[in-house]
């Protein structure tokens, strides 16, 4: 590839060169149509096909399903799927269980997101300064993140059971009915579980961001007489702002995707739908009860809401970048 470029280059370099040369030199001079290494397209083609097949097309298809009367048929059967406008959205949001699931995920986010940001920033700051047992500490904080939800859920069920260890320690302070079957506590317990489970990942992000905060800022803060607390708020917090925006975004999107935890920890969103999430209802309505169109409508609304929340967060936390 580089050879074909190199040969005509000298002749093309003379500005308004003689007429015969301009015809042949036009291509190489302007850069070849596909770039200097067209092989790059071949190297990236499988990934591009994958993204189209698994992300782009389903994304469009999902929105199409939400606006049409869509139901499962035997493979190969052609049926009419008429456009129904907002009917699926109306069906979905006339169901109080759906409204409740959006409220539940709101409660979840209100507990999970602030707790995640505060705890992961504090722990990452402390971890960044720690001098001893760094490997042990890092491994401890990351282990829940790398472990399967299904595996750790099993322990939490055991721990937060009616006569489980948590209630044994709390004694008379234990809620009745117990955490996971208590309509007030079920959702917060799930929020605490997810915070604990995912915290390692956000600590990792903040640790990376902390490496980018200039040391001199801390030094000048301390010569100005700022203590540890003061320099945390006036140097660390503004210094890691881009990471905070990312943590807010990722934890919000993860929270909106909540499925495994209510499905397993509270036995399918119980008690009485108090911990059902929108994705859980999408599974129940769409795949168990055969209404994929209604489920897609819930999905579209959920994603639009998440985008809205993410934009608001960006306004408040993002600053100019």
């Amino acid at each position, binding site marked *: 590839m*580089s050879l074909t470029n190199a040969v005509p280059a000298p002749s093309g370099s003379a500005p308004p060169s003689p007429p015969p040369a301009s015809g042949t030199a036009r291509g190489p001079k302007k850069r070849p149509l596909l*770039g200097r*290494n*067209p*092989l*790059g*397209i071949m*190297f990236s083609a499988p*990934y591009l096909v994958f993204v189209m097949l698994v*992300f782009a*097309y*389903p*994304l469009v*298809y*999902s929105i199409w*399903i939400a606006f049409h009367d869509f139901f499962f048929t035997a*493979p190969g059967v052609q049926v009419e799927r008429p456009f129904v406008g907002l009917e699926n959205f109306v069906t979905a949001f006339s169901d109080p269980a759906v409204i409740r699931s959006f409220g539940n995920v709101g409660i979840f986010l209100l507990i999970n997101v602030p707790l995640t940001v505060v705890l992961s920033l504090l*722990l990452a700051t402390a*971890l960044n*300064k720690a001098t001893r047992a760094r490997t*042990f500490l*890092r*491994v*401890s*904080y*990351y*282990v*829940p993140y*790398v*472990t399967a*939800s*299904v*595996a*750790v859920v*099993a*322990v*939490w069920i*055991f*721990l937060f059971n009616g006569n489980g*260890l948590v209630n*044994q320690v709390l004694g008379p302070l234990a809620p009745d009915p117990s955490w996971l079957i208590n309509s007030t506590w079920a959702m917060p317990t799930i929020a605490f579980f997810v915070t*604990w489970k995912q915290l390692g990942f956000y600590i*990792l*992000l903040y640790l990376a*961001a902390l*490496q980018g905060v200039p040391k001199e800022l801390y030094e000048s803060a301390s010569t100005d007489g700022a203590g540890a607390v003061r320099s945390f708020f006036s140097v660390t917090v503004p210094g890691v702002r881009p990471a905070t925006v*990312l943590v807010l*975004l990722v934890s919000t*999107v993860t929270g*909106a995707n909540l499925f*495994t935890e209510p*499905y*397993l920890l509270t036995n399918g969103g119980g008690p009485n739908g108090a911990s059902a999430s929108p994705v859980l209802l999408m*599974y129940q309505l*769409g*795949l168990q009860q055969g209404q994929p169109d209604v489920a*897609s409508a819930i*999905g*579209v609304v*959920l994603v639009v809401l998440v985008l809205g929340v993410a934009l608001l967060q960006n306004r408040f936390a993002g600053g100019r970048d």
Partner: protein
Amino acid sequence: MSKFQARLRAGVLTLGALAFLFPFYYMVIGSLQASPDPTIAGAFPNPANLTVQNYIAINERINLLTGLVNSGIFTGGVLLGTLTFALLTGYSLAQLQWRGRGTVFALALLVQVVPFQLLMIPLYVLIARDYGLGDTHLGMILPFAINSTAVIIFRQYFLQLPKELFEAARIDGASELALLWRIALPLVRPAFITVVLLTFIGPWNEFLWPFLITKDAALQPLAVSLANYITTVAASASNPFGATLAGAVVLAAPVVTLFILTQRYFISTDIGSGVKG
């Protein structure tokens, strides 16, 4: 920085670490108890109450080996797809000049924020219904076949390699594939290990998608069969907690072991740059 502050920090960090590790310790203890002991004394091993019976009990119900093999095939397929194609893509994005590479990189970033909940229904319709890949390993692997985070991590690593290195080899007449195999690959070994770990934990721990696509117990990954055990079968077992926790230990052990072995490559800056783009 006073001594007191350093002590306080060490204390808080240690306490936090113990809180993070305790459920894992409790998982192991619980899986070895002959009869479940949820009291405070039960958090310490009691020789009179120790047994491996729970592992036998869970194995009779969900066949751990089949589950592990299915998880292995699922994870192996995703690893193979990612290590081949994410590597090629990352390399071509960083070291080759071609039209449209900016767009492909933007797509890799964009894909990270596409929420799976919106894709769940159409992917199920397409893969299980239209392509008839329900209850197959291929159907399980397909949506995860190339990890976009891996594409970005590889690109980030290849960007750090000097372009002159590649130009020199090109002038010597090496083909692009030979360049990739003999020069680029040996230089990005740390990225390789990071990507293996990061890609491994995705499918190994994934529950929702394989749960949707596999109804046949003989094809289910361990995470799915264990979850089915928790929701349906556990109530009828003699020691449901012990058996469930034994299954949890078997599910968690491979990832935790892999993580401890490779944790020094799991360095904040690499992943951080990967995620930030």
